[in-house]
Structures are given as structure tokens and as C-alpha cells.
């Protein structure tokens, strides 16, 4: 069967590269790992089976938000096969946040919690045993006494006056250089709303989305004769893991050797650093190889989902469809801990107001903490849900004005040289051409003035 590839229209690139100077685009190239996949030879992390392997399972919080009054591991240690338990006292540097590697602070997440839990399913005690069944039995035998605290599940409730702060740093939001949210201020939206023919305001809400990789999150840590630890992991972010694990273990980076790169489905989600540090501590404590892999239920409950987002968009629009002002309020539900959400929220702010040139833009993007499962990265996070809201908004405006939704977009589409709201000059834009081509492919007739538009023609002042 001949592989079918789309004919690539290279004419758009003539200013950048010669017409025939595309050696790879449009040509089938075999994946480097495909032969291993079809023969069973590809080695995923769990395919490693070192002698004497121990299994780590977690006792997890049954409460959304509670003080830990008593944690008793006596009965867990009595389970046959259990060799060791680990609590926060066994973690050299317990507090971290993944993106401290790029200067994000504070360290807001404990490897294992000390006096309180912030979400249901949070790991509390690690139980290490000679078999997976014994580790599960041991984890179930840990006894925890809780004192419930009021839990916050809604982003706007979390920010409301009088709601107690669930975070040790004293606010339920991430602080951006001293500000309560990531802000974009461009032009004067309020003045533009006054002059607009129409003002439209709508609200959008997404749910958390689980990546559900077929291969669960996990790792196997093997102590080496030279004192190093060899970490087999399915992380998508080897260096996030290596650096954070070394900082948590208070060990030089050179003591850790990470073997990764083979990921049984990640979808942008296997970038947190949860399983490796505690598995390293377990391997160091026992001198044996240790496996920590989520069961399917854990993968669903505690691996970080894409954040739920609430987006409120208010637009000032002229009768001809020109958008003169866009005001966006975004709430990103980070859940209990920062992980990658402070970065995702900044990305969302920079993405506003979408691929459109609007002279007046106002954005408040809040990264909010709640007692939900911590959210984190997923493909295009920060942008994906924003686009769902922005493009729904564009369709609704078009309907309200009884206007062709493609023409509304073409009229407002950004072009090369336009200043974006976050003060970057747009370059390499292609929205106009993509819409024109899409319209052509589906037989959607565009009037001549729209067919003649180009991303490289300067906008009329």
C-alpha cells in the first residue's frame, strides 16, 4: 500500500526558502523507534526487571483538606513482606516546586506532607515491600487520623474575601512579581467599550482533563555499585526529574543517572516529578531496586490533569465586525499545588486576545489554588482552553451580527507587523491564508475583498 501524503503547497515559503528546498516535508520518514515497537523490542521503563526488586505503594489521603493528627505505621510494618515505610521525615529536602529550575517560587509542595493534606489522594506514607500485593496491603494498613479543614473547590470562591487561605504562603493565588494575577494592559478597553456599537460578554468553563496514557506514570530505581542511582522512568522531562530529584535528595546531580525517552503515551502530562524522588529515597534506604508505578485508579485520581479553566470574555465590536476592545478574565484551577500551572497561566495571558489584532486589550489571568487534584501540563496547556473560549466567542459574535464567521475572523486576523497585546510584534502569521484555503477546500464562498487579503499586507491605519 502506497503511503498517501498531502501535496504540500510550498509557494508560501518562497521568501524564506527556495521552492525545491524542502527535503523532508511531504516525504515519508520512518520513525526511529518503529521497528522496536512492531517486534516487541522497545524497552519501556517497566520492562526492566532487576533482581530483588522491591515495590513501593502509597497510603493516600481520604480527605480533601485536613490536618494530620496521627499517622501510625505500626500495622503496616507487621504485614508480611513489608520491609520499610517512609514519611516526610525520611525526605532530605521535602519542599519543592518543579519550576524552581526556572526561578518559580515558593517551594509549595512537599514530597510527603508534614502536618496537613491539601487534596484527596495526596500521598502520605510510602510502603516498600517484596511484592506488589504486600506493598498494597501495607499501604492499606497505615492508620491516619484527620481533623477536617474547610475545603475550597471553586476558583472564584477561593479568591473571595473571607475564604481561608489553604496555602502556607498565605494566599489562594500564585503571586506574579507581587501581583495577584498575570496582567496584560494594552490601550484603553473601557473607553473603547463606550464607543463600540455592541458589547458582548460571555463565560466559558472547562473541566479537568485526564491524559489517561495507556502506560501509567512510574519508575524503577536501581542502586549502582559506584553509589549512583540508575533511574528508569517514563517521564517526558528527564532533566526536570534529574534536577528536582537531586535537589530533594540533597545529592550532586552526578549521583543520578536517568534513563528515559521511551514514553507509553504522555500527551504532555508526564512532566511532573512525583514518583522518582521518593523511589530514589526508598532505593537508598533499602539498598535494593525499587519500583513505584501508579495503578490505573491512581493514574486517574492523582496524576495531574489539564487544569479546569473559567474564562470570561467581554468584547466591544463595531457594526461591521471590527473588534475594538477585548477584556478577558481567566481563572486557572491549579488545584492544591503549583506544578506547571504558574507557567501555563502566563502562557494563557500572552496568548490573549487570540490570533486577532485588537487595539484595546485587558487581561487578568489568575492562577488559583483549590483543594482539587493538582493540575499541570498537557499539550498546549494555557492555550487550548483559551482557544476554545476565544473561538466560541468569535462564533457567537458572528451569529449576533448575522455575519459569516470566517469573514469576522479574516477582518480581525493578525498580520505581520501588528503589535500584539503583550508587546511582541507578530511575524510569520498565516491565519488569513489558512482560513482562505480552508474555505476553498470546503467550498465556502468568500467575497473578493476577503479572498484578496494577505498576512503580509500591512493593515490600513
Amino acid at each position: 500500500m502506497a503511503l498517501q501524503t498531502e501535496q504540500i503547497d510550498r509557494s508560501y515559503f518562497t521568501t524564506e526558502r527556495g521552492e525545491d528546498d524542502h527535503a523532508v516535508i511531504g516525504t515519508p520518514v520512518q520513525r526511529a523507534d518503529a521497528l522496536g515497537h512492531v517486534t516487541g523490542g522497545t524497552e519501556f521503563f517497566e520492562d526492566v526487571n532487576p533482581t530483588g526488586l522491591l515495590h513501593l505503594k502509597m497510603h493516600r489521603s481520604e480527605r480533601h483538606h485536613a490536618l494530620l493528627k496521627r499517622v501510625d505505621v505500626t500495622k503496616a510494618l507487621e504485614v508480611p513482606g513489608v520491609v520499610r515505610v517512609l514519611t516526610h521525615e525520611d525526605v532530605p529536602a521535602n519542599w519543592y516546586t518543579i519550576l524552581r529550575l526556572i526561578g518559580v517560587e515558593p517551594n509549595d509542595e512537599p514530597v510527603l506532607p508534614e502536618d496537613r493534606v491539601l487534596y484527596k489522594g495526596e500521598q502520605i506514607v510510602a510502603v516498600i515491600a517484596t511484592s506488589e500485593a504486600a506493598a498494597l496491603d501495607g499501604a492499606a494498613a497505615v492508620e491516619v487520623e484527620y481533623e477536617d479543614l474547610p475545603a475550597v473547590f471553586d476558583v472564584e470562591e477561593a479568591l473571595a474575601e473571607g475564604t481561608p487561605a489553604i496555602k502556607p504562603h498565605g494566599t489562594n493565588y500564585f503571586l506574579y512579581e507581587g501581583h495577584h494575577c498575570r496582567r496584560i494592559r494594552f490601550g484603553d478597553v473601557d473607553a473603547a467599550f463606550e464607543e463600540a456599537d455592541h458589547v458582548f460578554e460571555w463565560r466559558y468553563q472547562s473541566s479537568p482533563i485526564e491524559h489517561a496514557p495507556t502506560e501509567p506514570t512510574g519508575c524503577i530505581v536501581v542502586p549502582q555499585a559506584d553509589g549512583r542511582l540508575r533511574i528508569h522512568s517514563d517521564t517526558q522531562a528527564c532533566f526536570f526529574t534529574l534536577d528536582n530529584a537531586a535537589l530533594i535528595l540533597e545529592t550532586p546531580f552526578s549521583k543520578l543517572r536517568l534513563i528515559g525517552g521511551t514514553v507509553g503515551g504522555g500527551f504532555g502530562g508526564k512532566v511532573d516529578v512525583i514518583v522518582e524522588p521518593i523511589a530514589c529515597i526508598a532505593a537508598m534506604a533499602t539498598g535494593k531496586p525499587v519500583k513505584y508505578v501508579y495503578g490505573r485508579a491512581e493514574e486517574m485520581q492523582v496524576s495531574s490533569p489539564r487544569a479546569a479553566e473559567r474564562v470570561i470574555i467581554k468584547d466591544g465590536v463595531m457594526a461591521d465586525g471590527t473588534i475594538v476592545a477585548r477584556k478577558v478574565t481567566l481563572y486557572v484551577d491549579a488545584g492544591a499545588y503549583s506544578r506547571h500551572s504558574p507557567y501555563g497561566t502566563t502562557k494563557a495571558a500572552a496568548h490573549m486576545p487570540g490570533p486577532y489584532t485588537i487595539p484595546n486589550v485587558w487581561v487578568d489571568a489568575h492562577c488559583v489554588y483549590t483543594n482539587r487534584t493538582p493540575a499541570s501540563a498537557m499539550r498546549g496547556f494555557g492555550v487550548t482552553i483559551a482557544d476554545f473560549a476565544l473561538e466560541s466567542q468569535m462564533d457567537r459574535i458572528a451569529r449576533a451580527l448575522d455575519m459569516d464567521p470566517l469573514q469576522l475572523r479574516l477582518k480581525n486576523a493578525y498580520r505581520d507587523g501588528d503589535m500584539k497585546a503583550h508587546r511582541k510584534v507578530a511575524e510569520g502569521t498565516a491565519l488569513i491564508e489558512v482560513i482562505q484555503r480552508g474555505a476553498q477546500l470546503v467550498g465556502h464562498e468568500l467575497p473578493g475583498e476577503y479572498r484578496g487579503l494577505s498576512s503580509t499586507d500591512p493593515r490600513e491605519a
Partner: protein
Amino acid sequence: MRSRVIELVVNDEPQEFLAPPGTTLLIALRESLGLTAVKRGCAQGTCGACTCLLDGEAVMSCLVPVETVDGAEVHTLEGMAGPDGELDELQAAFLEGFATQCGFCTSGMIMAARVLLAEQPDPSREDVVRAISGNVCRCTGYESIINAILDAAERRRATGAISYTEKGA
């Protein structure tokens, strides 16, 4: 309860190993025999990544207690290529048809397809869809997988070759 000695014929070779009570066929293949093409995705019979052939039938090996199949004949992806490593038509079609992405479901997909083609050398698209309906590809590469299975069937019919499937299953 004590461990038991289990005998299986795996990829045409007799095997003998010790299985603690409750050991699944999946864990026995992976941990006792080092055959790791079968994958553990859910351990509850919903993802299909552990699919292998048990006496010619496709089974989810995570649901089969190995002590209940003592003496059975098992086939896994590792035994699929020919003696000199030449790929089976299914393997070749998956490879050339870009039917793998992360690769985690590939073994289960090929094993499910192997049973289908053994029973039905000229399957319809619907037959293929039904045959892999218990196998999750979370990368959602189903179209390429379905096309590859149809392509493999065509390759076999064209060459008239006796496939390893027909011998084995």
C-alpha cells in the same frame, strides 16, 4: 498457599517456571520469562495492551491466572518474526504504514489482528474494527492501525504465503 511449577509452550518453545498463587499470565510472561511485549496498562482487562494468544485465542493476559492454563500454548509478539528476523506481514504493514506512535498498544493490536487474519484472511473494515475493539490506542492512531491490518491481509493473500499465524494459531 505455595508456589506451583507451571509449564507452558511459549512461541513454540517449552517453558517451566515457578508461579506464586495469584500470578497472572501477564506477570508470568513478563517477569518469569522476560517476554515484555505484553504490557500492563490497566491490570483490569480494559486496555488490551496485554493481549496475547492462548491456544490460538486472543486473551487479555492480565485477567488469566497462570495456574489455570498450565500446559497451554502461548504466542506473543516476540515470536512473530521469522527465523532470520524477517517480519511477519502484520509487523511489516504496521512498520511501513505508520501504525505505531508511542508503541505501547502495538503488541496487543498485532496479536488481536493475528487472530482475526487466521480466522478471516479477507476481513472487511468492520471486521477489523471489531477485532481491535478491546484494544485502546490512546494516541488515537486507529485509522493507521486499521489500514495496516487490511494491508497485511492483502499482502498475505497476494503472496499466498503460509503465515506464522496459521502455523502457530
